[in-house]
């Protein structure tokens, strides 16, 4: 490690102690069904033994931002970081209740889910503007990463100068192509994982301790 990096870390630790900086709030963002809550559950379970929230194949299962406080993550090389994890609803520009009826929901239930989902997306955007210090941006590596909502969201995160890790999730699936995600966002660190199976999450923890510490 270079002298400059060591000095920067020492200075950063000193300033945190001196100013009693609050724990960084790390938001898990991404489109619906990218696996955000599955990752949040894994992080919380791995480091506190608790759980964060339910998961479902029906989009917009998470319709309220949920925060789990005081998680200490330690990377393989001993770096550690104290954070709050904020699991957010999937971001989109459109929600139609009829989409939920295709999963077998009754109309009333689908309309209610759609209304809660729209409120959840608006809330997630508000968190990003006001209360988030760093972002894990989750993408399903079986899907096209060049969707407009991803381009917009990464642009918004960059404009706020927030540190971001792009996570290429679902690498356990046969159609996974994390290379596409790496080529779409070459300016940011990309970590390929399966949050369901837990493969490669140690590399993500290492990256989190390095970038958010």
């Amino acid at each position, binding site marked *: 490690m270079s002298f400059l990096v060591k000095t920067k870390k020492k200075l950063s630790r000193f300033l945190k102690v001196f100013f009693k900086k609050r724990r960084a709030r790390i938001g898990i963002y991404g489109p619906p069904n990218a696996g955000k809550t599955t990752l949040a559950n894994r992080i919380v379970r791995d480091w506190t033994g608790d759980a964060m929230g339910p998961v479902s194949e029906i989009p917009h299962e998470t319709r309220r931002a949920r925060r789990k406080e005081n998680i200490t993550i330690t990377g393989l090389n001993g770096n550690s970081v104290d954070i709050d994890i904020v699991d957010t609803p999937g*971001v*989109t*520009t*459109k*929600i*139609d*209740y009829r989409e939920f009826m295709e999963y077998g929901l009754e109309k009333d239930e689908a*309309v209610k889910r*759609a*209304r809660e989902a*729209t*409120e959840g*997306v*608006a809330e997630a*955007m*508000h968190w*990003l*503007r006001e209360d988030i210090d760093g972002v894990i941006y989750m993408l399903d590596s079986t899907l096209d990463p*060049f969707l*407009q909502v991803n*381009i*917009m969201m990464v*642009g*918004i995160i*960059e*404009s*706020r*100068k927030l540190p971001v890790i792009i996570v290429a999730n679902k690498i356990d699936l046969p159609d996974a192509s994390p290379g596409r995600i790496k080529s779409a966002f070459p300016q940011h660190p990309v970590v390929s994982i399966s949050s369901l199976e837990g493969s490669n999450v140690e590399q993500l923890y290492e990256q989190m301790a390095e970038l958010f510490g």
Partner: protein
Amino acid sequence: MQGIQIDLISEERLARLTPMEKIRLILDDVKQGNIVVLEKGLAPEEASRLIEVTMMEISPDGFSGIEMETYPAKEAGAGLSGLISRISGRQPGSRLTVIGPANQLRMIRKDKDLISAWISSR
């Protein structure tokens, strides 16, 4: 005559509007079933607010949101201007943007220099 209205909004007109006026202009137009083409796209902060306001206006059997597509931002170029952009952290300018009702506008293909869209009538 039946058809779809397409509004092409110039960079000059957009520059005269506040962020909230831009969002209102876009959403009011799109909710009437029109397609809006912005000569210059929204800033990230404006895009963030557009998503938020769009979500607040979605209603069952009414407005279901927007479809939006833009060219990827140009990379900061080589030479002095590119160097200044990189040093100053200035974002490359956003480019031509197409926005329409989610239930009428479908993007077929997007490249770095081509957006191909399909529009249906209501």
